[in-house]
């Protein structure tokens, strides 16, 4: 996998998750744990198993979920100390030094993307592997996926794969009507 291509201006990171390709191997969850050095009880991403239909017309899908890096993030507006903030590149980040652990952001997030660090008491979550992005590498979950479920890139670059995919008819944004304006797009199979 190549590193995300940067356009001339500052990037606007986004991800596409194609659930039709997801086999539920959880490699993304393991890679995330490894990259962020998380304790076993804390998760930045997860894969939800959804069952639908009625036997014999029955099916199930895997739905990878994580922080959606919303453009109108409820977690940022509710934060009383400014610990949660939106970066210019679209990433919703947390200044753990300023987090008092009030848990208001956890309750405000419709995606259940945030978790408490039990050791230090601050809230943390997926940061699109900002350190890897800085070094021109892909986020751990994207790079590790064996079936190519995840596409990551810069929405400000009109020639990027993510820009083309995000504009296609088949993508949806989860929880769009809650006015969160997510940066993760889904193809739901």
């Amino acid at each position: 996998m190549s590193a995300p291509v940067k356009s001339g201006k500052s990037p606007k990171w986004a991800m596409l998750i194609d659930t039709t390709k997801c086999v539920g191997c959880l490699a993304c969850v393991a890679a995330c744990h490894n990259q962020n050095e998380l304790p076993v009880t804390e998760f930045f991403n997860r894969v939800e198993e959804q069952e639908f239909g009625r036997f014999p017309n029955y099916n199930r899908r895997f739905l990878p979920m994580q922080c959606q890096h919303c453009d109108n993030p409820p977690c940022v507006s509710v934060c009383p100390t400014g610990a949660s903030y939106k970066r210019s590149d679209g990433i919703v980040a947390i200044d753990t030094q300023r987090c008092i652990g009030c848990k208001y952001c956890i309750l405000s997030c419709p995606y259940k993307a945030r978790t408490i660090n039990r050791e230090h008491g601050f809230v943390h979550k997926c940061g699109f592997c900002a350190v890897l992005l800085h070094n021109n590498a892909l986020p751990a979950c994207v790079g590790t996926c064996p079936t190519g479920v995840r596409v990551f890139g810069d929405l400000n670059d009109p020639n990027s794969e993510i820009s083309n995919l995000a504009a296609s008819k088949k993508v949806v944004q989860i929880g769009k009507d809650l006015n969160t304006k997510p940066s993760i797009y889904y193809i739901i199979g």
Partner: protein
Amino acid sequence: MIYWSSLITFYLFSAGVSAGAMLLSIAAGFIDPVKYKRIVTTGAYIAPFPIMAGLIMLIFDLERPGLFWLLLTTFKYKSIMSIGAWIITFFSTVSIIYFILNLQKDYLKLKTRATAVNAIKIVGLILCTSVALYTGLLLSTLTARPFWNTPMIPVLLFVSAVIDGLAAISLVLCFKPDEDKGYINTFIHTGDFVLLYLLLLCTVIFLIGIGKSTQSAAIALGIVTSGQLSALFWVGFVAVGVVIPFIAAAYKLCTKMRVHTPWLNFISALFALTGGYIVRGVIIDAGQLTQAILF
């Protein structure tokens, strides 16, 4: 999953008692400071203390209590919690000033300027209204939580806060001998009757509204009306907190029993306070147990 424990329930309850007691004290003072003197002074003496206990609980519910001061070095106008932190700071200060003003009128006998006292009362009125409202707004502005995300939550908690304030005043007055020829009793029972009637209406509108809302709201309603919180809701809140005190108030008004009957006032006030605590616990838990269904 439960993130906000019973410490938050206690905080919401104590803030409601303080705000309600101060609201009634100032309001009664504006209506007739001589006739309702005992309401005015009792309310003023109660107001600063429950919220102080609540604030301690609030700080200990934080994962990092040592950093609570960050709330007071930041102001985020988009965050109801940040706005609320400032409101309760000002409220606590003004409630202590109001407490001292009443104390000096009764015991210290110092000279005060009437305009300054009135200014404190008007500021106090705005602040206690803000405290009673913000606790509900804190919950109702979260779109992720269908049980909270309704405009009825702040209204319901506001009415409940005034009831709790009145009950706290009534409870304290039970321990003082009657010397008011029934004025005070009429005030308390009329207040109870009107406010509990309003609370009952709010509850019915809230339940119907939630039931006719989204699928996730209906699940939350199920938890409250027939699920794990149903006993607390129906017995603890509806019966003990609303219906019994309402019947007691109606009975006392209808039978013109305006003489002081401490035992009935005591039980009625205790029930109303219990209901006020339980309804907050039910709301806090039900909101956290259910989440918006996204897909």
